[in-house]
């Protein structure tokens, strides 16, 4: 139907890795540089949109199952992080300034930005990144994989 030429397919293969790295960089550095879970998740979703367009005929059936499970896992991880803070209050940042995982204390003022800071926020960024990535690719898949519903 849409004869996607070989060049497009090869370029698509090449592009997968840089876009993935850039997307996860934006997600993981949400607390240091602009961006975060939402922007990074959207970047990764463009990856899926590109793959759907180029390899549309090779899909035997619509792979939305994997994305709906991934979406639920992302959201459950996010709300469980909020529940873990219940020792003091619902959305409490229980990892900050404890020198554990992401616990390095940060003082007021300009600093070059250390990755191991900001307690729960990087974990929440990852959870939201997974959720946004799978929600957007689910929507892209649903809108693009035409089912050919009967026309009245």
């Amino acid at each position, binding site marked *: 139907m849409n004869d996607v030429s070989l060049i497009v397919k090869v370029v698509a293969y090449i592009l997968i890795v840089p876009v993935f790295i850039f997307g996860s960089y934006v997600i993981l550095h949400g607390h*240091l540089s602009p961006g975060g879970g*939402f922007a990074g998740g959207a970047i990764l979703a463009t990856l899926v949109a590109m793959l759907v367009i180029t390899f549309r005929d090779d899909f035997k059936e619509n792979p939305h199952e994997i994305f709906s499970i991934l979406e639920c896992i992302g959201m459950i991880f996010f709300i469980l992080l909020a529940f873990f803070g219940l020792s003091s209050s619902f959305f409490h940042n229980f990892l900050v300034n404890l020198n554990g995982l992401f616990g390095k204390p940060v003082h007021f003022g*300009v*600093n070059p930005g250390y990755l191991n800071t900001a307690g729960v926020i990087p974990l929440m960024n990852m959870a939201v990144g997974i959720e946004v990535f799978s929600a957007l690719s689910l929507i892209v898949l649903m*809108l693009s994989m035409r089912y050919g*519903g009967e026309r009245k």
Partner: protein
Amino acid sequence: MIDIQFLTVVILISVGISTLVFKKNIIKIVMGIEIISSSINLFLISLGYREGSVAPIFTNAPSVKMVLPTPQALTLTNIVIDLAITALMLSLAVLIYNYYGTLSMKKWRLVERCS
């Protein structure tokens, strides 16, 4: 003198509402709602600006005088909400085209028929 930012917001909102009022095509209605929501995002961001300040990110920041962070957080939330609304509306538009063959609202069956 009137601030050019708030004037642009007002013009964009009225453009968005006029597309909603006058257009019959579904995709144009979705575009109208998108215009209104982007103009409200512009309004939120322009409320948060402080003269001579930089973005509120302390990594290698040129100065410590910073812009207000809350409007940016509100705009972040609003952008994702409008993404969700547009996604749902466009998928409804796909199905409406599927059943009625046209995207214009003239052929809708749910008009108030008291027959």
